[in-house]
């Protein structure tokens, strides 16, 4: 119970900070909207070739926007030694990770919730698809990406060129999640049911579980000198 209230305190603090400076959401959102508009000019909406590229475009948008948000997640924490203040609190560092993952998933999902309808309209997408399945894939993909991204953002925050270091560390490791998520998104957009993509869903759940558990256990060592 004590742990839960501490996790909740970190989440509330991060949301309050974001509400004040809006650095994470605004950078992710602006980037996402620019990507949607540019790709909308490049590809012909409704075209059969375009439909094949849409899942890839969507996940490129999600991971690059997510990378921007994750970079800020710990960058902001380092100002005035905030991260040391947090580490000095009587809480296992692994629970700080849980709080940070929840916040990062929330920020990424919020940006997706705003961007996706615009994406849908601009790319003239069909409304006759399995939306719950798409939402499930988006959630699982985002969770996997945020699970790895949260630990790498903490690691890269210790380096001098953290903005460069984060994508270099993060993208290769998150390839399985992004592949599984974009493949299943493509099948859902092609009209497949949840049962038909169950293999990809299981793979995403597996990756999420492995990443979450491994990062939870390893987070303690991220702050070691």
């Amino acid at each position, binding site marked *: 119970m*004590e742990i839960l*209230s*501490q996790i*909740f*305190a*970190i989440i*509330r*603090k991060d949301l*309050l*900070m974001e509400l*004040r*400076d809006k650095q994470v959401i605004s950078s992710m959102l602006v980037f996402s909207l620019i990507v949607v508009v540019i790709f909308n000019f490049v590809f012909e909406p409704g075209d059969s070739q375009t439909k094949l590229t849409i899942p890839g475009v969507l996940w490129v948008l999600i991971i690059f926007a997510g990378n921007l948000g994750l970079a800020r997640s710990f960058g*902001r924490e380092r*100002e*005035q*030694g*905030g991260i*040391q*203040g*947090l*580490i*000095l*609190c*009587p*809480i*296992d560092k692994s629970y700080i990770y849980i709080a940070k993952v929840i916040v990062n998933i929330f920020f990424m999902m919020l940006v997706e919730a705003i961007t996706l309808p615009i994406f849908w309209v601009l790319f003239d997408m069909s409304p006759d698809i399995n939306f719950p399945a798409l939402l499930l894939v988006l959630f699982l993909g985002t969770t996997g990406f945020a699970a790895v991204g949260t630990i790498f953002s903490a690691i890269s925050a210790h380096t001098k060129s953290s903005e460069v270091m984060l994508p270099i560390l993060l993208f290769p490791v998150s390839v399985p999640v992004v592949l599984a998520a974009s493949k299943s998104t493509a099948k859902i957009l092609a009209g497949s049911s949840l049962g038909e993509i169950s293999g990809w869903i299981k793979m995403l759940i597996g990756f999420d579980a492995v990443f979450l558990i491994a990062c939870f256990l390893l987070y303690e060592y991220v702050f*070691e*000198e």
Partner: protein
Amino acid sequence: MIRTEGLTKNFGFKKALSQVSFKIKEGEYAALLGVNGAGKTTLVRILSTLSRASCGGVWMNGLDVKKNSIKIRKIIGVMSHSSFLYPQLSAEENLIFYADMYRIPDKRHYIAQLLKRVGLWERRYDLVSIFSRGMQQRLSLARAILHQPKILLLDEPFTGLDVHAAGLLTDLINENVKNGITVLLATHDLEYAKNHANRILLLKNGILSQDTAASAISLEQITNKLTN
């Protein structure tokens, strides 16, 4: 009580601390002196569980730092030249956050008392980002003593403070010493340490070169030992 035995810290081939052993009794006000790079901050970071020693041991109130880091964090208060505050939050919000992390009961009442004590009650709703350095350090001290720690570790807390702010901070530290809190102050202000602490630890190139009562050593002797 703070006790270290053969404390050593290496950064690669560089030895930041070498075989540092000392004992600070409960309620004692000890000053850790040394020139820049002597290892003061490294020592405070190890004592405060922010860093691990390469070898040797640290015990805080009898608890081994290696095995009881979470328990130790409950009984220590740490203040350094970084404020550990969130600039996007107000003074009160910062303290509420830390009060939640330390599970402090009746936090609103206690935070109000603390803010009044450090002279920031009128500014409690202001964001820390607009605070002066002195105000941030006063709030930082309020954060450090929020959970009523038994040991206070202070690493250069007076850096960048004007005379008035430094005076207020001194009063607040002395008040805690009177309340029986063990204080370790890392500083390069020799005169301040001599006048306020009752114990002097001299650190030179990572080695504890002197451990004596403040009354048993003159300012000139301290200066000579550190510079020669």
